[in-house]
Structures are given as structure tokens and as C-alpha cells.
């Protein structure tokens, strides 16, 4: 569990843009894993299964927040977190690439954000992501493409990239 906790927590943080929510979701995910340990597949399928439980717990947490906060959409909750992150100019000045990326990620729609996190942070293949989020590999591929397009057009990352090139 010790070795799994950190990647699971960071994945949940990137998906939810909320550290306390990520903590709750990961705790719930590990409890679910223990409860349904008999259903855990063996071999290569175990990793996507674990991430699937984490992602599902994130969805459950976001849904609970949605109900609890006067039916405010989860994306709105994530937007509010994104707004509190530094703006493009501050990012360029501070050179905080990580913050810029997290802010850009939190602005992505949730159906695109989850595959991006699972692909480029967790390192899952498109097929494994498809297993994890219960979608066809073709859908995952198109979502990743759309996510890359949106991130490429994101003002924060663009400004940061221009600043980086200018510095060179």
C-alpha cells in the first residue's frame, strides 16, 4: 500500500484539483480495493483495475460534492480551484511550470482530464485507460487528441512556452 499510495494520491489530485478531496477519494479507493480484493485481476490487468478504482472513487467524491454543494457541477468546483491558481503572467515570472500545468489541467473538461492524467502521469497505455474508464480504445485515443489540442491552445501554457522560447 505504501508504494501505491503516492501515485494514487497524485493521480487523484490531478483529476480532482483538490487535495483534501483526493485524500478522501484515495482512502475510499483503498477500502474498496480491500473489500473487492477477490475481484482484483492478476497480471497486467491489475494496474488498470487499481486506477479504475481510484478514478471511480474520484467520481464518487465529485458527485457527493455536487449534491452537497447545492447541485453545483463538479467542473465548477474544479474551476474554482483553478481560479485560485496563479495566472499566466505570474507563472511566467515565477517559472512554475508545474503550477501552470496543474492550472491548465484543471481547466480541461473532466472526460478529457482523466485520460490525460492516466496516460501521461500514470503511464497507462490507451488500452489500459480504456479498461480503467470503461470506454473503447478509439474513444480514449480521440479524447487524448482533443485534450492535447486544448492544452496546446491553453493561454497559460502558451504564454509559458513563449516566455521560455524568449528566454532562450
Amino acid at each position, binding site marked *: 500500500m505504501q508504494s501505491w499510495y503516492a501515485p494514487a494520491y*497524485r493521480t487523484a*489530485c490531478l483529476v480532482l484539483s483538490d487535495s483534501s478531496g483526493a485524500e478522501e477519494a484515495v482512502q475510499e479507493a483503498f477500502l474498496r480495493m*480491500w473489500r473487492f480484493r477477490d475481484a482484483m485481476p492478476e497480471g497486467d490487468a491489475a494496474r488498470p483495475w487499481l486506477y479504475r478504482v481510484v478514478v471511480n472513487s474520484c467520481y464518487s467524491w465529485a458527485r457527493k460534492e455536487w*449534491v452537497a454543494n447545492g447541485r453545483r457541477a463538479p467542473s465548477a468546483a474544479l474551476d474554482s480551484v483553478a481560479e485560485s491558481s496563479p495566472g499566466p503572467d505570474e507563472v511566467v515570472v515565477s517559472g512554475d511550470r508545474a503550477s501552470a500545468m496543474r492550472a491548465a489541467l484543471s481547466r480541461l473538461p473532466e472526460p478529457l482530464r482523466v485520460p490525460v492524467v492516466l496516460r501521461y502521469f500514470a503511464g497507462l497505455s490507451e488500452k489500459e485507460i480504456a479498461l480503467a474508464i470503461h470506454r473503447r480504445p478509439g474513444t480514449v485515443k480521440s479524447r487524448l487528441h482533443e485534450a492535447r*489540442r486544448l492544452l496546446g491552445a491553453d493561454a497559460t501554457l502558451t504564454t509559458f512556452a513563449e516566455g521560455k522560447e524568449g528566454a532562450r
Partner: protein
Amino acid sequence: MITEDELDALLHEAGGGIAVPAHGPAAILAAAASPTPEPTVVRGRFRFRELALAGVSVAAVVALAVVLVTSSGSSPGVSSFLAANPAARAALGPRLPAAGVPKSTTHGAPAASGGREIIATGTLRLEVTRAALGRDVAQLDALAARFGGYVSAANIAESGTHPGGTIVIAVPAASFSLLIAKAEAIGRVRSLSTTKTDVTAQVVDLGARLTALVDERNQLEVLLGRAGKVSDLLAVENEIEYVQSQIEQIQGEQRTLAAQVSYSSLTVDLAVPRPPHVSSSPNGFSHAWHQAVSGFVNGVKALVAHLGDLLFGVLAFLVAALLVFGLWRGVWPRVRRRIA
């Protein structure tokens, strides 16, 4: 567009910069070891889901039952025979029983059919020609008489824009199948549906209730003879009166049931097809368009007319399901938080 390598590096940088709480694994172990951990809540949620599912299922069953009961019942307001057909009315009228309920074959108890008490009903839709409508009605009347039955209701229009109508024939249960076979030969069969309802349990229940009430009345009559005071006498008499009214009510139900079991009813719908509409427009496309619109409207009308009850049931089911879903999503999380 951002490249995969750039994205990979950026996301690892973004994720790697997130501080992992050191107490996280310990908190999970503590939650797992807790005597009232999250699973209790989850189990509760599952119970609530099961309850919600059960509620939705019950609502669906009730809706279906309402649909079946309303659709199998006889249509209210079926008038006596039409004024436009005095000859047929004269032929049918005298055969209608005065009370509208056939005589029971036994003393109050329904007739048995192979040990079971079965109520059989049916609906036959026939397509007939306008010219032969009067003759077909007379044939149906003759069939009813031939099988020892009668026409319990009729509503026929020979003229006007919608010639046709409905005749309800009641015959002894043993002749029901023969009646259907003969009636089918009168016109072109568009549809036939029959329903058989087993009322054995209802009959047995009524019999048992009647026996118990009769015993109670007998005991009260014994008490009546022993009553010394006037107040006691009046009290016992009141009780006897009440029990007697219940006995008569059950006997009435038994008679009705016996009539329904011993006589099966067949509703025959006689429909005269409309002549094809000839468009005045020489344009073939316009004619086809009007035909298509007319067909669509007629189809919707027929759907609403025949599935009205079903649509009502489906709507009732949807409303019930929405209510349950709303409670589940809206109220239950708050209640659960308060409980927690």
C-alpha cells in the same frame, strides 16, 4: 498542438510536485480497522438502492395492474341497441335479461370448470362491409341465441360517417370457444384477444368468510335469546344487523362472480373500412403527401386510443421513478451525512 513528450514531462513535473500526506496510509489502516468504517455506510447505501429498486418495481407492477384492470373492464356507457336499426333492436331487445345479470347455475356459488373458477372474456375485431352490417349484426344475435346466451350490450351505427359498432355477447362458458369460431367467420378478422382469469382463490375466500359470518350470526341469535336487559337486547340486535348486511354483501359478490364464471362474454367490434380518399389535386406528390399525413394522424389516434391506459401507466411509472431517483440523489446524502 502540444507534443506527447512535452505533455509527459509537464505532467510528471506537475504530479511530482504534489506533496503526499504522510499520514495517508495510516489513516486508511485506521479507517479499515474502525468498527464502524465506511463499509457500513456503503452497505446502507446499497440497502437504500435495493429499496429504491423495490419501490420502482412495485410502482411498475401497480401501473401495469392498473392498465390491465382498466383495459379488461367492460367499456362504460355502452348504450342499448341503436335507434338507427329498429329491426335489429326489435330482434335483440326481448332477449336482453331484465337485470343484466344471467341466472346462476348453482345456489349462489360460481360454476366450476375442471375444479377451477375461470372468468373468460374476449375481444374480436372484425372488418365488415357497409352493406352487410345489418345482416352481420343479425347473425351475431342468432349465434348468441344458438349457444344459449344473449346480447348484453350493443351500439351499432349503420349510417353516418363512421358506420360500425360494438356488440357484447354473453354465452355459457362451455360455448365460448365455439362462439368465437363462428363469429370469426362473419367478417375479416383484424384481431382477437382472449383473457382467462382464475378466481378460484377469491371464490374460496368468499365462501370461508360467509361461513364464518353465518356462524357468528347464529351465535348472536343464541345470545339474543338470553339477553335480559333491553340495552343488551338492542346491542345484540344491532350486531346481528351488521353481520347480516355483511352476509348479504358477500352473497351478492358470490352471485356476481358466479355469473361471470358461468357466462363468458365476447365483445365484437364491427368496423367498416373507409373508402379510399380521392384527392382533387392532380399532383401525385401532393396526393401522396396528404395520404402520408392522414396515415400518420390516424396511426397516432389509434395508438392513443388503444394504448391510452398503457401510456398512463408508463407516465405514472416515470413519475414514481423520478421521485425515487430524486430522493436518492437529493435527500439521502444529506441524511447520511447527518447520521454520520
